[in-house]
């Protein structure tokens, strides 16, 4: 069973639209009942990447509204509510019920509605004597946003800041952990799996893991749980593994510039909920949708930008060729000599074929146009900010573990927006193994010259000085020989070996990818051996049996604190590389661009008191 989260969530939503009656095999049951759909802002974000208006109509939904909008009565029609269980929503529902806007209300809450709110709802509707309008109340466990088949996000803002906030109290941290756990629980309930949980020790990941484990245990003990019974004979071979990580595990990925198509579009142009708004070629903003129904996006999302441009060219040429062929066959371009009497049938047949292929051709053209537009805008941005050089140099830095001072200065004084320079500086900080105070001073002064707010930079410096493990990536991406050579011959050789390394490992593998690979294989590995193992199905006293560590075919990877498309791409690559092909679902609390993440770091820096005007930067405590 391949974990296709998007499909499962769409099925759940369709079932909900069918008033929670089972959908029969044709998938169009109960079309005769026309209903109205009402959602709130969060659930709108859940629904919009999954269902278009066309599908809504297919399932009998005629009107769709936000719950806060002023709605008029539509008598004699059932209304399906899909909202979060919160106090204002409950009030709105009570108002709607008492005003008698709709015939019957089917309430679906995106996560479990707590008991006090349920009682509120009951008392409110009893008070206005409209309780008979409420037909059903359901908990849908759908409180997450699925962007692609194997990518989801919990859409919880600023979780990194809240978790790492030095002034946060225990209660606040617990609240956040609780929210994350409930989101993860919804994901697991929708997939109907109880995975084996593994996470590194210490940090928010462990907190989330133990809380989730507890919640799953409690839930499984209850009478009617949401997961299929009979999990006893299911060996670990069939259960997926849930790997929880914290953003601090690999900070660089969230910040650095990447040059592949998908991360570029997200980072530079701002892709939100699979939707993109760019400046069109003839002026005016155009908005496009980029998801798995776009064949070009699907195949070319993970190749580097120059390759994308070439692909667009080749597709355009192919399209032109096809159009010319169609024209030729139907005698459009050529002379009229083709129109003989006997050829008439042939011609009309060709004409019919041409007309039949028209929709497909127009669609192809639309896709090509869309990507041409996006690529043009991207190219403009890249040229202006010289993003390609940023990406390349950051990659080099992470692999080599350091950078030439002159190169560093030239970049900081060169092209690029302030955010770009800040990100570059932070990557420099993360990648260099030892902090050279003079270089750091130089960097800071360069940043000040360019009027960049170095708050985030100082925050990272502080973190690094507290020896939190940030750059586990570069340490292991070198092969053993080179390591040994380094130790023996020192820095002078590193320049030579850098070139060699570049030849050997053209693609730096993310620490996350390596760890997930190791976890999925289950062989003893020094990196992961001290990771926690939690199995909600096993009784508390048993020690993790051998079966639990066996090779897993499927994995769910969750990053607490913010993830992005680079990690997603890396994991998908890993999944495809394996023999046989495995499935990895990637999720995070929210999908952040580099700029947004650095903003969060800035916020943290400010909370720590490392303001812009700090004249004496704290000396690194070695």
């Amino acid at each position, binding site marked *: 069973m391949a974990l296709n989260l998007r499909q499962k969530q769409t099925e759940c939503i369709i079932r909900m639209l069918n008033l929670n009656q089972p959908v029969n095999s044709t998938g169009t049951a109960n079309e005769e009942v*026309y209903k109205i759909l009402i959602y709130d802002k969060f659930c709108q974000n859940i629904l919009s990447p999954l269902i278009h208006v066309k599908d809504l109509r297919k399932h009998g939904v005629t009107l769709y509204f936000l719950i806060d909008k002023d709605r008029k009565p*539509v008598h004699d029609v059932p209304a399906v509510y899909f909202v979060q269980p919160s106090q204002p929503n409950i009030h709105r529902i009570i108002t709607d019920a008492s005003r008698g806007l709709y015939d019957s209300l089917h309430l679906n809450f995106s996560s479990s509605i707590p008991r006090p709110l349920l009682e509120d709802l009951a008392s409110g509707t009893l008070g206005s004597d409209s309780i008979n309008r409420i037909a059903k109340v359901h908990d849908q466990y759908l409180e997450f946003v699925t962007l692609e088949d194997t990518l989801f996000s919990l859409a919880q803002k600023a979780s990194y800041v809240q978790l790492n906030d030095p002034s946060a109290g225990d209660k606040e941290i617990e609240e956040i952990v609780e929210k994350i756990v409930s989101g993860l629980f919804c994901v697991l309930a929708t997939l109907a799996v109880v995975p084996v949980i593994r996470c590194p020790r210490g940090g928010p990941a462990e907190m989330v893991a133990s809380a989730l484990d507890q919640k799953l245990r409690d839930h499984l003990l209850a009478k009617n749980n949401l997961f299929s019974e009979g999990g006893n004979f299911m060996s670990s071979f069939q259960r997926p593994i849930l790997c929880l990580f914290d953003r601090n595990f690999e900070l660089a990925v969230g910040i650095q510039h990447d040059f592949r198509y998908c991360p570029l579009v997200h980072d530079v142009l701002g892709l939100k909920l699979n939707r993109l708004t760019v400046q069109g070629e003839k002026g005016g903003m155009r908005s496009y949708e980029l998801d798995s129904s776009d064949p070009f996006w699907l195949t070319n999302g993970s190749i580097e930008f120059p390759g994308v441009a070439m692909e667009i060219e080749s597709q355009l040429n192919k399209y032109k060729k096809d159009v010319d062929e169609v024209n030729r066959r139907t005698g459009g371009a050529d002379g009229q000599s083709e129109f003989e009497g006997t050829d008439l049938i042939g011609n009309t047949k060709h004409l019919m074929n041409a007309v039949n292929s028209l929709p497909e051709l127009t669609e192809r053209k639309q896709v090509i146009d869309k990507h041409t537009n996006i690529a043009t805008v991207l190219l403009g941005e890249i040229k202006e900010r010289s993003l390609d050089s940023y990406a390349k140099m950051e990659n080099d830095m992470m692999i080599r573990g350091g950078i030439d001072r002159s190169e560093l200065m030239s970049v900081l004084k060169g092209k690029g927006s302030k955010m770009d320079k800040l990100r570059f500086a932070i990557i420099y900080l993360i990648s260099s193994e030892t902090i050279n105070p003079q270089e750091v001073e130089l960097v800071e002064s360069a940043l000040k010259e360019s009027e960049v707010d170095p708050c985030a930079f100082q925050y990272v410096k502080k973190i690094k000085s507290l020896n939190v493990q940030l750059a586990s990536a570069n340490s292991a991406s070198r092969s053993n020989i080179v390591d040994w050579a380094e130790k023996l011959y020192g820095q002078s050789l590193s320049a030579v070996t850098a070139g060699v390394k570049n030849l050997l490992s053209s693609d730096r593998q993310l620490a996350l990818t390596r760890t997930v690979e190791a976890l999925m294989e289950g062989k003893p590995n020094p990196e992961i051996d001290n990771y926690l193992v939690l199995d909600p199905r096993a009784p508390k006293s048993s020690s993790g049996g051998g079966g639990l560590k066996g090779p897993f075919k499927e994995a769910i990877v969750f990053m607490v604190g913010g993830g992005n498309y680079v990690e997603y791409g890396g994991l998908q690559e890993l999944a495809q590389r394996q023999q046989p092909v495995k499935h990895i679902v990637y999720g995070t609390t929210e999908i952040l661009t580099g700029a947004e993440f650095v903003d969060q770091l800035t916020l943290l820096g400010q909370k720590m008191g490392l303001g812009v005007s700090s004249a004496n930067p704290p000396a690194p405590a070695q």
Partner: protein
Amino acid sequence: MSAALGKTSYRDRTPEFLSVAERLKKSISSGSNADVSSSSSGKPDGTRSAVAVQSEFNKRASKIGFGIHQTSQKLSKLAKLAKRTSVFDDPTMEIQELTAVIKQDITALNAAVVDLQLVCNSQNESGNISTDTTTHSTTVVDNLKNRLMGATKEFKEVLTMRTENLKVHENRRQLFSSSASKDAANPFVRQRPLASRSTASASPAPPPPWANGSASSSSSQLFPSRQSDVESQPLLPQQHQQRQQQQQQQQQMVPLQDSYMQSRAEALHNVESTIHELSSIFTQLATMVSQQGELAIRIDENMDDTLTNVEGAQGQLVRYLNSISSNRWLMIKIFFVLVVFLMIFLFFVA
């Protein structure tokens, strides 16, 4: 419920909700039993008629929907029958019956949808129902129209497929029958391809097209079995007899005339089929153009947010306009200003 099915991912809280409601009701009613009678859930009379009209609309809509569903089921049966390509075992009777029934259904549904549209329009014009209801009704009618159009298109496709199959039958029959003499292609023999069926009008029984204008004599044995197909063309049996007589009588002259007639018939046939195919192309284009409407709209793409904001802004502006244009407030303000001046005047002078 969930444990038995095992794979559901939602939980029904309705029983819990109802029990909570019961409990609260008991506690409320034990406290005060005067409130229960005062709260009347009866809708005011004005809306009762609106509700009646609305439910009439709904009933009709659901009946039409159900009819369309049944028609599409029959269509799938017809498609299965038409696909069966065996030369000798042709279920023509069933196919024709089914075709006739489906055609009747579609015309009836068409009329019903038009009716419903009228009801919807009259309802929209007659006052006191909300804008949302009108949108809802129009959307329902549009939806039904689309579905009916889809069913009709399917019908047309099934019939075209049936024509193709019959052509294939004819060709095969020709192959198997090894007669050298070709029959005179009677130019009176109208070769009506099935593509002539348009959505609203159709002749009840599709006559099998005579492939390429020539029928071998051995296939004449099959003519009697096909007599039933050509009841709409009473001319044909006579023409067959004629043809056979002609054959016997005009053996010599036949070859020459044959080829001429044959080619002319062929040409006619070609032209006719071309015209029909062109018409189908045009209708297809027209539907394609008109279907560009709701192809890929996302839920959050509508301007609802901006609309609510604009509405709110407009409301505020209107209120402000009212406040500054109402005379009463203006007078009071002027009065106040005068009083203040008077006071200052008195203060400083006196």
